[in-house]
């Protein structure tokens, strides 16, 4: 991956001025490259990585494994497109292995997710079966640890 993209993936708030210094480029060049990535749809958005477990909010998350019958000329994509339109679905992936689609789903409580899966997902045309696993705790998200290990104290001066 381009180094600029790598740095933005790690910290989207890095300023063009700092990025320019790190990459030995001009600020204008950095700005135009970012605009180009946005225009081409390679950068699709900027989000914060939030430790939701430490917030006092009512959110329940689950992963749902979905088995699907592929359809002629549409493969899995047609069903996947329908599934991904539901606002409950955060992420959706086509998988190899014993099931076909993996959905990350969120709701206010267990009941909301259960209803969504049984009433909306399972009844979609082409969906053969679903298996729902509720998430209990997040340890690491997008490469970021949710709990920093205690840092070791280095000497303040060393040769």
């Amino acid at each position, binding site marked *: 991956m381009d*180094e600029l993209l790598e*740095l933005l993936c790690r910290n989207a708030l890095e300023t063009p001025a*700092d990025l320019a*210094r*790190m*990459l*030995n480029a001009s600020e204008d060049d950095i700005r135009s490259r970012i605009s180009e990535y946005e225009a081409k749809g390679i950068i699709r958005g900027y989000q914060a990585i939030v430790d939701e477990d430490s917030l006092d909010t009512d959110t329940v998350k689950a992963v749902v494994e979905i088995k699907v019958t592929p359809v002629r000329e549409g493969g899995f994509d047609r069903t996947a497109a329908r599934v991904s339109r539901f606002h409950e679905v955060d992420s959706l992936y086509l998988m190899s292995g014993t099931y076909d689609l993996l959905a990350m789903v969120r709701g206010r409580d267990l009941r909301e997710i259960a209803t969504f899966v049984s009433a909306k997902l399972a009844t979609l045309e082409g969906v053969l079966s679903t298996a729902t696993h509720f998430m209990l705790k997040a340890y690491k998200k997008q490469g970021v640890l949710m709990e920093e290990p205690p840092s*070791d104290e*280095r*000497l*303040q*001066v*060393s*040769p």
Partner: protein
Amino acid sequence: MNDSKSVPDRVADHLRRIPRSGIRDFFELVSQRSDIISLSIGEPDFVTPWTVREAAIFALDRGATSYTPNMGLLKLRRAIGGYVDRSFGLRYDPETEILITVGVSEALDLAIRAVVNPGDEVLYHEPCYVSYRPLIAMAHGVPVTVATSRENGFRLTREMLEAQTTSRTRVLLLNFPTNPTGAAMTPTEVAEIGAFARDHDLLVISDEIYSELTYDGERGSIAACPGLRERTIFLHGFSKAWAMTGFRVGYAAAPPELTEAMMKIHQYTMLCAPRLSQEAAIEALQSDRDTGIMRDEYRRRRNYIVSALNDIGLACHQPSGAFYVFPCIENTGLSSQEFAMRLLEEEDVACVPGNAFGASGEGFLRCSYATDFDQIKIAMDRMRNFVVRLLA
């Protein structure tokens, strides 16, 4: 008996003549303060890669806590042999030519003690790591300084070396990339210095601890020059590129007779390097993923800090290796020591005064960028405030 010695008199003469390290004075000053940003740390801010730590835990778990052979675990020596061959095109026999030591610091001491006779002159370039001069003196050699300067990016030339060479010169001690200047040698320069060593029949001790942290161009060891392998002691270790400082594991590679001589000292003084560290080092050599990631991060920080310092008005050459920049502070009218002290007192930023690395380091400051990026940014802002006030 009424003429018993005073306690200080009991300290050996040659040791009394060696001054205290300037870096220790500065350390004591810094350690009295809290909440400072330190750019004075000569070790990675990364923790040792997880796979390496995991290997050490596994070794401890299965009770691998005994001595190892004096030379070190053969498995590690073989892994090092392969690595040095792949990285530098140098072949050493793991059975007779590679010695595992307690960090490259021990290897350096062994190398000097193994080849220096009392009165032998040892050439070394300054500004340099704080240990070189004292180690030569402790081996009863005569340290001969070759001063490098900012004008040519702290490079070492044959001309500079020739000027300091006498009939008593026996050893040339090199450290590229260099702590504290970050200077690295190009292949042409390596060849030039190699030819110099050959022509004067010198033994070369090459401390290559920062060699993985080379950012522009290729790295190559002087030992790979024609005719140099037989007269070079190649020193390396795991502290910097693998972020394993506390493991204390390094190595020396040299022809069998030289290795055997170093082994003699090592055997009687150290026995062997710590077993767990050797086990961890084997794992370190099996994965270079993390060293690549760290190098990329250091390179970006270097770019940032060099550009920021030059903007501030402190002329700073772009170093090609290690994790130090060495800006010139002469235009502020302060000495290195004054600048570092006042920067610490007024802005809570610690950098090591350049004269801690030899007289030719006067007028400079060593800033380590082995520090979290956000900290570097804040430090640069504070240094800007400081310099603006000074020059106002």
